[in-house]
């Protein structure tokens, strides 16, 4: 980015009104937080008051995101000057679409919280501020186009998350979970920052486009890229922490088990999704920096690293879920596994061969959407079961099919979807990822297809355990469940959405694919010379 020190009137360089509009959803989130801060002073800190304020804020944010969605075209729209926020933030369909999704999910999680923990919790303002704060962080994560904003966004998303994991101060386990989450997060963030500083030294800038261009130029120029590799690895640690990729997944099961289930729901989807989208943006910028398709194999090592990591992540997640007694923990491991699947898709859109350009990207985005609904559904049911049973152990599901069919049926649908069984949307998600992997036509792609398929087979077991448990008759006849109506509505709507997404997969896919197009329209002025490319080609051929 250009330093604007020499300019006399900085504000003439960009259209402030337009930029404020483009980023209005985030501004709305900030205003919501301020509103919630003001509420206790002006009206009162009752849960009802606060939740009304929060829902109002969420609705406004959703509405604004909807409006912005209509105006951003296919191309990445930048804010403030020719470059978005001077290259710090971008607003494109991807980021705005993610914000829309996030608001839907936020509403679902808030509803869950109001049904559950809110009944004994008196600190609604704090909870909502932290929740919306982390949502803001996630929105920033998907919009950032600069390593500095990326770091700040990750912190913005993480720090409130640490606090809400241990939000209930009477909860020993929650305290322990938040401690572990915080320590692991702080360590990863510190390492990421160290990497960032090295990147700055090498590239002379933190703009992702420039980093990408520099990387590609170095690689094609045959320069020694060791330090760049080290630096980017360190940066990747921070991202991997958010995605909970192996071996940076350790926090995930502990924090998810210890947190209140609403919080687990929130983190298991939103924070991972944001991390994945961020990774996706980074990777697509890399792709965009490679000037011609022929040289895509420059990035092959990168794809292999991410691919192998993804494969390991999926496998570890699935295997570790096996012996879990706590359903929450089992779902935490399953979320690691699913992050692995999504990372696989990220690994391959580094190969935008003519037909498959953006296939991995849109597959991943679709999977995120589907994953959001299936996790909301599964966690919602688990939440209601655990409130009723007083434990989140799998035994709580005993005989659920008789005790509350309206909980059991959505759960079965969600689990089937998580497995990837056909009539649910999860199948479509997996199928599209497999297609994207296969379309690359590379050894990597096909190996990942095999790994993903085998993993689906493995995952069958532990998901089925819940199903079996629900069918098993209880020895003592326990009474029927009395779940809150809104909760039943929530999970059943999610289940229906899972079915609908399956049957309406065509339009759904087209819509999502639109989100990803903007990424590929980013053009990067690359300093790569043609001679160096020729060298790289020769070497790749050898």
């Amino acid at each position: 980015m250009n330093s604007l020190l020499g300019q006399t009137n900085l504000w003439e360089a960009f259209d402030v009104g337009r930029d404020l509009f483009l980023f209005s959803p985030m501004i709305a989130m900030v205003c919501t937080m301020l509103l919630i801060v003001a509420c206790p002073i002006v009206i009162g800190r009752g849960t009802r008051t606060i939740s009304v304020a929060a829902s109002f804020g969420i609705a406004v944010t959703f509405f604004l995101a909807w409006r912005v969605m209509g105006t951003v075209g296919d191309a990445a729209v930048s804010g403030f000057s020719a470059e978005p926020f001077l290259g710090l933030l971008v607003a494109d369909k991807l980021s705005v679409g993610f914000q829309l999704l996030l608001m839907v999910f936020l509403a679902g999680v808030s509803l869950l919280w109001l049904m559950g923990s809110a009944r004994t919790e008196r600190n609604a303002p704090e909870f909502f501020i932290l929740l919306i704060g982390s949502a803001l962080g996630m929105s920033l994560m998907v919009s950032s186009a600069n390593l500095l904003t990326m770091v700040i966004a990750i912190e913005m998303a993480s720090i409130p998350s640490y606090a809400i994991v241990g939000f209930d101060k009477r909860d020993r386990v929650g305290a322990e979970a938040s401690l572990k989450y915080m320590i692991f997060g702080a360590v990863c963030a510190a390492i990421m920052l160290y990497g960032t500083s090295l990147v700055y030294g090498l590239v002379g800038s933190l703009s992702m486009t420039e980093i990408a261009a520099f990387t590609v130029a170095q690689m094609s120029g045959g320069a020694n890229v060791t330090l760049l590799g080290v630096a980017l690895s360190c940066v990747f640690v921070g991202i991997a922490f958010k995605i909970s990729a192996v071996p940076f997944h350790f926090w995930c099961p502990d924090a998810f088990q210890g947190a209140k289930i609403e919080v687990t729901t929130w983190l298991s989807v939103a924070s991972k999704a944001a991390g994945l989208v961020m990774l996706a943006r980074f990777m697509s910028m890399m792709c965009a920096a490679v000037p011609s398709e022929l040289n895509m194999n420059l990035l092959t090592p990168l794809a292999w690293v991410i691919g192998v990591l993804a494969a390991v992540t999926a496998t570890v997640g699935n295997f570790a879920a096996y012996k879990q007694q706590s359903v929450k923990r089992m779902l935490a491991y399953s979320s690691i596994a699913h992050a692995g699947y999504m990372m696989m898709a990220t690994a391959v859109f580094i190969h935008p061969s003519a037909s498959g350009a953006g296939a991995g990207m849109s597959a991943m985005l679709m999977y995120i959407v589907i994953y959001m609904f299936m996790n909301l559904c599964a966690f919602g049911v688990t939440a209601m079961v655990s409130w009723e049973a007083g434990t989140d152990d799998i035994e709580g599901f005993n005989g659920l099919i008789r005790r509350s069919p309206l909980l059991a049926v959505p759960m079965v649908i969600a689990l089937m979807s998580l497995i990837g069984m056909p009539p649910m949307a999860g199948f479509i998600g997996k199928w599209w990822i497999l297609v994207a992997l296969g379309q690359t036509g590379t050894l990597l792609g096909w190996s990942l297809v095999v790994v993903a398929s085998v993993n689906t087979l493995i995952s069958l077991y532990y998901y089925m355990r819940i199903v079996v448990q629900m069918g098993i008759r209880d020895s003592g006849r326990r009474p029927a469940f009395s779940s809150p109506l809104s909760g039943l509505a929530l999970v059943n709507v999610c289940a229906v959405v899972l079915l609908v997404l399956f049957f309406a997969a065509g339009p759904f896919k087209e819509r999502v694919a639109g989100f990803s197009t903007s990424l590929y329209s980013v053009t990067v002025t690359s300093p790569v010379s043609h001679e160096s490319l020729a060298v790289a080609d020769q070497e790749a051929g050898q």
Partner: protein
Amino acid sequence: MFLPKKLFPAFTAASLLLAVPALAQTPAGVTEAQAPGGLLEALVFYAVAFLVCGSALGVCFSKNIVRMAVWLFVTLGGVAMTYFLLASNFLGAVQLIVYAGGTLVLLVFGVMLTSKSPWARFDVPKLELAAAAAVALTLAVSLCVVLMRTEWHSAEGVVAGATMDQLGKTLLTTYLVPFEVAGVLLMVVMVGAAHLARQEKN
């Protein structure tokens, strides 16, 4: 621990003393020579580097938390001095005021609030220490090797330090967005930390 414990207050004093020549060397930071060099700079640098590295190792090898905090304070002071050496006066001041004066104090509060006896020790198995040392040493060696091998893209040499004026302008123009986000972050952190640390009235 390779430094005698008794010496650490002395090191603290030395750090403050060393800050003086550092400050003197770059009075306002504007009119600095293109290639500062010479023996004086080298000497000051090595003193500061020794201070920083030594106190960082002191943090490593201290067994109790209070000592660690004190060593950290020395380290932070030393880092501030490196900033002065690098002609980043504003940053050095921020480091001293915010980091040493704020963050560290926060940590010390944490220490005081969370230990029955601040001198309590938690022993760690020897083998684990060895493993950690191995990892750290491996990283240190590899990083040093690679850093020394690397050719940096622009070797323009040393440039003039920035004025606070420039810093302030950049911060509030180019970096306005992160600046605001940091503000929001601090607000959220304030709410969260207050919630976590507050005594619940039952």
